[in-house]
């Protein structure tokens, strides 16, 4: 356990502070077309100072620093303090880039990593299909060999930002005769290829919350075979590396949400008395604070494993499960504290924080389900984390 901030780190912190006092990010750092130039300028500036893409090799457009837990913590703390996002929370940087670093060819890394980190290219993820939710490996979108290309046909769902992305990293079945898990390839697909149709998918949370989802319909979509990452038929394994990474590093910022909730409880009054004065609500807040602290420090433990390249084992597999439920439970308390006004939504009068807590409640529920339901995650924890036996294969009927 070494969390001392020695002098070198004080300097580093000062640098970060100075940077943040001098530079302001663009008003919004989204994926939209009109945000592109602000986004690219800002991300490029961050990379130049090493606050983003910090440990990615210079050869691929990163800053090329060695991993350091405390530097990471300091950067996060300082950026959080002034409420500025440290980089670009999108599926390209968080899912595609780690995949390319591990499985991509040298050419693929050189071509894609830098523009992705700089926000020049927006990616979407083509994994789920309507018939393949929990059982992702049963996906049916086909990639049929045709000369040097594959012809893709099928349907993807839950493809967020598909309406704005230039590229898609997509899983398709290229070896129909291989076993279920061995017939899938991981392919990089330009979204302007003819034959791609994107349709917005509405969720229960309706108008509030940034996240938009889509369905993507693919009809004879032509993509070069050279766009496969790793080997043909190894897409399942490759995608799972990233999914595992996602499960262990979901940064829910539970502590930030908890503080926001505490503020709400100090401000919201019932009969003129702050909700914080209610021993029951306060006790629930303290229970949640303990859980938030738990997940915060667990996150630091995971980050250490990550930076050292050590396996996190079962301790890594449980992160997403716990963080999503914690968010959901924090939202539930907030909604209870607001009482009958807690149900207000859709930017109506008296609505608190523009519906943030109701949106968080529904979005967390979506996260509990998405990317492998809680049930699937518990299977994975038991089998991969604890070594419990798999369910026996059913007899053919």
């Amino acid at each position, binding site marked *: 356990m070494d969390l001392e901030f020695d002098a070198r780190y004080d300097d580093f912190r000062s640098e970060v502070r100075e940077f943040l006092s001098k530079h302001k990010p663009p008003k919004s750092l989204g994926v939209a077309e009109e945000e592109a130039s602000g986004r690219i300028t800002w991300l490029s500036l961050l990379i130049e100072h090493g606050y983003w893409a910090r440990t990615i090799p210079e050869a691929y457009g990163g800053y090329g620093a060695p991993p350091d837990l405390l530097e990471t913590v300091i950067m996060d703390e300082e950026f959080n303090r002034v409420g500025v996002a440290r980089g670009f929370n999108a599926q390209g940087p968080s899912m595609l880039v780690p995949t390319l670093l591990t499985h991509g060819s040298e050419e693929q890394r050189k071509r894609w990593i830098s523009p992705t980190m700089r926000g020049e290219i927006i990616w979407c993820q083509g994994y789920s299909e*309507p018939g393949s939710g929990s059982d992702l490996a049963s996906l049916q979108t086909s990639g049929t060999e045709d000369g040097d290309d594959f012809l893709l046909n099928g349907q993807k769902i839950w493809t967020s930002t598909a309406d704005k992305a230039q590229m898609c990293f997509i899983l398709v079945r290229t070896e129909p005769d291989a076993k279920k898990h061995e017939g899938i390839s991981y392919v990089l697909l330009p979204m302007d290829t003819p034959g791609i149709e994107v349709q917005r998918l509405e969720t229960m949370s309706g108008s509030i919350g940034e996240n938009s989802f889509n369905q993507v319909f693919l009809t004879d979509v032509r993509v070069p075979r050279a766009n496969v990452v790793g080997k043909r038929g190894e897409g399942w394994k490759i995608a799972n590396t990233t999914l595992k990474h996602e499960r262990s590093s979901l940064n829910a910022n539970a502590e930030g949400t908890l503080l926001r909730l505490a503020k709400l409880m100090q401000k919201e009054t019932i*009969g003129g008395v702050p909700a914080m004065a209610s021993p029951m609500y306060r006790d629930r807040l303290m229970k949640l604070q303990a859980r938030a602290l738990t997940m915060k420090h667990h996150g630091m433990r995971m980050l250490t494993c990550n930076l050292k390249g050590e396996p996190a084992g079962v301790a890594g597999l449980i992160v997403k499960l716990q963080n999503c439920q914690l968010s959901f439970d924090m939202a539930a308390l907030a909604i209870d504290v607001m009482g*009958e006004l807690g*149900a207000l939504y859709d930017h*109506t009068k008296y609505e608190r924080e523009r519906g943030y807590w*109701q949106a968080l409640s529904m979005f967390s529920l979506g996260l509990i389900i998405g990317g492998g339901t809680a049930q699937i995650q518990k299977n994975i924890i038991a089998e991969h984390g604890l070594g419990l036996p798999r369910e026996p294969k059913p007899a053919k009927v």
Partner: protein
Amino acid sequence: MDFGLSEEQQLLEQTLRGFLAEHVPIERVRELRDADCPNDRSIWSALAELGFAGVLVPEAQNGSGLTLLDAALVAQALGHSATPSPFLASGIMAPMALATAGGTAADAWLEGIGSGDLVMGVAVTELFSVREGAGVQQRGGQLHGRAMMAVDACNANLLLVAIDSETFAVVKTDAAGLEITRLNTVDATRCTSEAVFEGVRPEAVFDGAGDAIRRMLEAGRIALAADALGACEAMIEQSVAYAKERKQFGRLIGSFQAVKHMCSEMIAELEPARSLLWYSAHSFDAMPEETPLLACHVLAHVSEIAREIASVSTQVHGGIGWTDEQNLHFWFKRIANARHLLGGPEHLRDQAAKLQGFAPAA
């Protein structure tokens, strides 16, 4: 000598559920989401024609004069189908207050309510929760102030407004000085609004109406519990049906133990809550001295299990349950809104403790 529904009650339930399945399928509810107020008058008229608007209106006022248990079955069916209607205010709470308080004006309104021609909203939130400094006062024969989260007031003709625990007034919704503004909630199936009173002359003021107010709240809480329980039923039914039809990993998902147990746990909460609901509603007419405690407990308990059932049944559906198009969320949100509409669980439990002398009275 029988703990259960009578044959008449079973028939009432079947009839109504059949009607709702045919005339208010969830697609109809979805259409009403974009209306100014979800309490569509044509649905309410049809329900009134079948006698459901007047279920609690005394026979002397041409109502059915049935018991609260009958009324609770109606509320449950409406929750089950997520039907938007002014039943909670106009079918349960207002008639209970008026019938208890009595008088000529009350009798006339009761008649109108029972026929469905007159719809009466209720504004009673400040009896149990004061937010934003709300509250309505009488000054010189006029009403001033603000009532939050009035129920079923938008499309109503009259509004019953609580002044304090002993007094309520009835005003016309188009009265001068009264402004009723819809407040949107997550729940598109129930009408809630703010009513601002700036010197509104009431149609009538009922003083010394403590019993009427208490009985109105008790009846409302039991009916709201019934409504939420009906929504739970619907969510469980859909989960079980989905689990019998959706395949993953080459098997029906209902054959997985995890899915089975989620369904089992939901039904294990639902069924005993149904028993408590029956008894609580029955007590309202047969053993009213037991009702104050039961009304708190049944709504608090149903609110707790309903939140869990809403979440678990969505999870049983996986991603599709989270989409708008699957419609499951209509029930999810009806449950979410019901949780605090007539007092949240913590408040209700505190009341229950006070009623037994376990907590210092306020």
